[in-house]
């Protein structure tokens, strides 16, 4: 007797339905962070492009920001949270080894009992999430997927660190991905290079903290190594993403890179030889570097301020600790 086994029925296309955003409640100026690193407002602006970064007060948690961003995205998508088939939370600052932040988020936003898990891909996390959401929707495994990139990086910084801490901010961005009649998310170019595992990392492990041999772990980076990789290697990835998407730079409405540092953004844009018609997202100027949250926050800002229109194409590219990277072209929601 032959047994017939059911498999998921795929749908052809997926797209991003909506975005949501939440930023830290504090506006932290360069003057606020310059003292411990013996720097100045001018020095920080010139070298990073940052004028202010948004950070969360002690009372505002990573989960609070994730819930706020998610609820906005769900409302704008006009879907019932019960129809969310998976919750993916990209973060490196959820302060519990387990359980995941995603399961709690799913419960708080009314998506319980959706499958939910965290993605640890640092600044590439949101693009990893969109890649997985696209696959889950098109395979038929989930009707709608909530992707959140959220960080409270201010819990993991050292005010005296000159390599990265002064760049960092807090926030959460959310996207609803669902089925579509037309293509809305290109194939993703993604990967990692663990040979540069130390280039962006924590100062030490939690085990060393436990044993008393090290302090609370905070973020550090080797700026030059990261800069070279983020510009010249990521330019190759960005060009590959355009190629697999079947579009040209002039077809884009926007380039939304991980908001790492204005000089990485500017140099990467230069390497891509973008025409003037392509808007380059620079949310870093006011928000700072929010790791996994930075791409959805920057895209949300472009749409909210009318710099780009729904229906246009955006190349989004995330890159960071791992080193991990991901890029895809999406139709703006």
């Amino acid at each position, binding site marked *: 007797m032959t047994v017939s086994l059911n498999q998921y029925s795929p749908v052809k296309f997926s797209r991003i339905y909506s975005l949501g955003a939440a930023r830290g409640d504090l506006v932290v100026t360069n003057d606020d962070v310059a003292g411990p690193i013996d720097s100045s407002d001018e020095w920080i602006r010139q*070298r990073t492009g940052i004028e202010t970064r948004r950070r969360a007060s002690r009372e505002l948690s990573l989960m609070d920001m994730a819930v706020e961003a998610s609820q906005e995205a769900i409302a704008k998508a006009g879907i019932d949270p019960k129809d969310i088939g998976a919750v993916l939370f990209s973060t490196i600052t959820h302060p519990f080894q387990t359980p995941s932040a995603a399961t709690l988020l799913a419960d708080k936003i009314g998506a319980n009992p959706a499958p939910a898990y965290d993605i640890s891909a640092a600044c590439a996390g949101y693009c990893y999430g969109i890649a997985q959401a696209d696959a889950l929707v098109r395979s038929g495994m989930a009707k709608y997927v909530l992707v959140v990139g959220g960080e409270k990086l201010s819990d993991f910084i050292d005010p005296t660190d000159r390599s990265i801490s002064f760049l960092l901010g807090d926030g959460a961005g959310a996207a609803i991905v669902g089925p579509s009649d037309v293509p809305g998310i290109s194939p993703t170019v993604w990967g990692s290079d663990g040979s540069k595992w130390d280039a962006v990392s924590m100062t030490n492990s939690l085990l060393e903290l436990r044993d008393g041999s090290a302090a609370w772990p905070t973020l550090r980076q*080797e*700026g*030059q*190594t990261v*800069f*070279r990789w983020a*510009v*010249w290697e990521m330019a190759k990835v960005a060009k590959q993403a355009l190629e697999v998407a079947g579009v040209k730079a002039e077809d884009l409405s926007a380039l939304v890179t991980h908001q790492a*540092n204005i*000089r990485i953004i500017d*140099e990467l844009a230069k390497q891509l030889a973008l025409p003037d018609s392509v808007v380059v997202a620079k949310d870093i100027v006011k928000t700072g570097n929010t790791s996994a949250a930075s791409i959805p926050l920057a895209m949300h800002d472009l749409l909210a301020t009318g710099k780009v229109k729904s229906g246009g194409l955006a190349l989004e590219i995330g890159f960071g600790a791992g080193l991990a990277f991901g890029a895809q072209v999406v139709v703006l929601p």
Partner: protein
Amino acid sequence: MALSKDEVLAGLAELVNEETGLAADAVQMDKSFSEDLDIDSISMMTIVVNAEDKFGVKIPDEEVKNLVTVADAVNYIADNQ
């Protein structure tokens, strides 16, 4: 054919000028990139990557921190062409 150190210096000075706007004749062998020419680490890396293209050399990340003076860079490039 390998370039002379003078030729490397002239080419490097052009790259410094493109990145920073600094006059090419300010780029002299005894000058320190950071102390004398006020070139920060990110501009330095841009110059390094452009130098790799221009001179056909490979300058690994771990080597960049050893390039303190213009002479360090000229010698490295000349020796590794």
